[in-house]
């Protein structure tokens, strides 16, 4: 199984941090600290005492939240430009929000467009839930936004008013269902073609171009 390797920089850093102290400090590491167990006898206040040695350097003190560091590291690896993070960041006012219509381009098959019902934020495991109607059948897809098989995510249509729920599961009900979003995708594609008509872009450049455009906004 192919896995990533520890960067050599970290290894050297670790080696440097774990290099033992020289002999002069060895004496300093001698048990100068004592743990005294006192007694109630005023004549002999110390019942007993034990030498206590200093603990080795703590990884937890330096990295108290390894899970957060892990997420950051993996996101750096999978999203070098930061576009994916930015598209769903809460800090970004232009970010995609529940209720928007998004299109996900994957490395196989046709791109899937649908209204975003929910965004599950979980570091590198962050995912979006899209809903659409294909051949009059409701289809819902979860996509991991940092997955390498997801080539691009584009905002097709923005909901005019902010959704007042974070999870729009009520849109599954027939009364609230948006139905097929194909007309929105068509409109978006036409408008995009107008803007980028001077460049004859290939089909495979669509996803990346759109994504980059969103990221640079």
């Amino acid at each position, binding site marked *: *199984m*192919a*896995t*990533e*390797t*520890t960067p050599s920089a*970290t*290894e050297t*850093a*670790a*080696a440097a*941090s*774990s290099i*033992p102290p020289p*002999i*002069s400090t*060895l004496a*300093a*590491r*001698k*048990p*100068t600290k*004592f*743990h*005294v*167990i006192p007694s109630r006898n005023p004549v*002999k206040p*110390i019942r*007993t*005492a*034990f*030498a*206590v*040695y*200093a*603990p*080795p*350097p*703590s*990884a*937890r003190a*330096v*990295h108290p*939240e*390894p*899970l957060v*560091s*892990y*997420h950051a590291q*993996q996101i750096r690896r*999978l999203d070098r430009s930061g576009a994916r993070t930015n598209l769903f960041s809460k800090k970004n006012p232009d970010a995609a929000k529940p209720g928007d219509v998004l299109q996900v381009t994957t*490395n196989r098959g046709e791109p899937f467009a649908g209204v975003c019902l929910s965004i599950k934020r979980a*570091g*590198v*495991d962050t995912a979006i839930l899209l809903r659409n109607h294909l051949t009059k059948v409701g289809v819902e897809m979860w996509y*991991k936004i*940092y*997955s*390498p*098989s997801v080539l691009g995510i584009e905002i097709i249509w923005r909901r005019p008013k902010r959704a007042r729920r974070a999870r729009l599961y009520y849109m599954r009900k027939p009364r609230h269902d948006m139905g097929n979003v194909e007309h929105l995708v068509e409109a978006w594609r036409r408008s995009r073609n107008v803007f980028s008509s001077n460049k004859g872009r290939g089909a495979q450049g669509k996803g990346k171009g759109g994504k980059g455009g969103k990221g640079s906004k």
Partner: protein
Amino acid sequence: MAPRLPARWAASLSSAASASTSTSTSVLTTRVLLTERHALLPRTAKRGVKYGWSTLPSRSRPARFNQVSAGLPAPTAGPAAALKRKEATTPLRTGVLAVKTGVSAMFIDGMRMPCTILQMEQVEVVAAKTRAKNGYWAVQLGLGHKNAGNVTAPLLGYYEAKGVAPKRHLAEFKVRTEAGLLPVGVQLQPDWLKLGQWVDARSNSRGMGFAGGMKRHGFGGQGASHGNSKNHRTIGTTGPSQGGGSRVHPGKKMPGRMGNERVTVQNLRVLKVDNEMGIVVISGHVAGPKGCVVKISDAIKKEPPAQTFIDKARRILLERNPDHEAKLEQARLRHLELKDARKEGTIGEAMAATTALATAAATETATV
């Protein structure tokens, strides 16, 4: 349990007897007074708790029979046989201790692999258990740090003798032979594990508290209707009636405390090791809540990592802790001194002397 070895004086008798049969009687008579009915023990203070113990009958000991030396096959039970039997499933080298910090996913070749992130916090070798002394080979590891005030006096003495700081958790990892042991006081880093190797993860599962039969053992429960009265989730009958014994068989599954028991998840991959953060990422999930202690060891049902890697990891470990022998020896001597001082009640003076020495050394280094 301690091995059932014969007491030292008896062992010496048998060894002397087997060594030379002609002189055995003379050796015996010099040490043990033989009478018609009893073999009296020597008067020298050779017995006692300090010199081992035995559950055998104390005065009539078969010394020459029922042994391999008498031409019998080696016993199939007992400590030696048990070790031999478990040899194939005992890892070659020690595993590591780590704290579960959470679960996430890793994308590998376009595939999503769920993973668990574990942190190795100040993992040090605290002791080595040996066949001669303890009956088996094992490495005792300590994890984390504990305030000395929260450690009992006997354990403080234990850590003092080892020259390591008090540990939050201690755990043993059995190893196959003496070659798997590690020197006391060395610190283990995540790169002790090879990237991509198979490991087993042992930890205590999340405690569920007192749970009923449906949740704890998956019982079916009872009907919601058909005259059922207040027995929808009860376990029903616990055994046959008269004719079947009219009793509940031992081991009957019943409501009780669920979870918080040792769970081993076998054959997980090591996806990532990072010395700087001290993390080990392994595929899949391990039992227990965040913050629980996990024992990660080489998988017993898969091939261990290559011998070259094992040797390399060991070499790197020893290079990172070059003065471990000196430190241990120093700590041992210091412990003996302090122990004597404690016995004599002069520990206060010993402490004062040590601190004075330290300050002197500090000033000396400062002046240098």
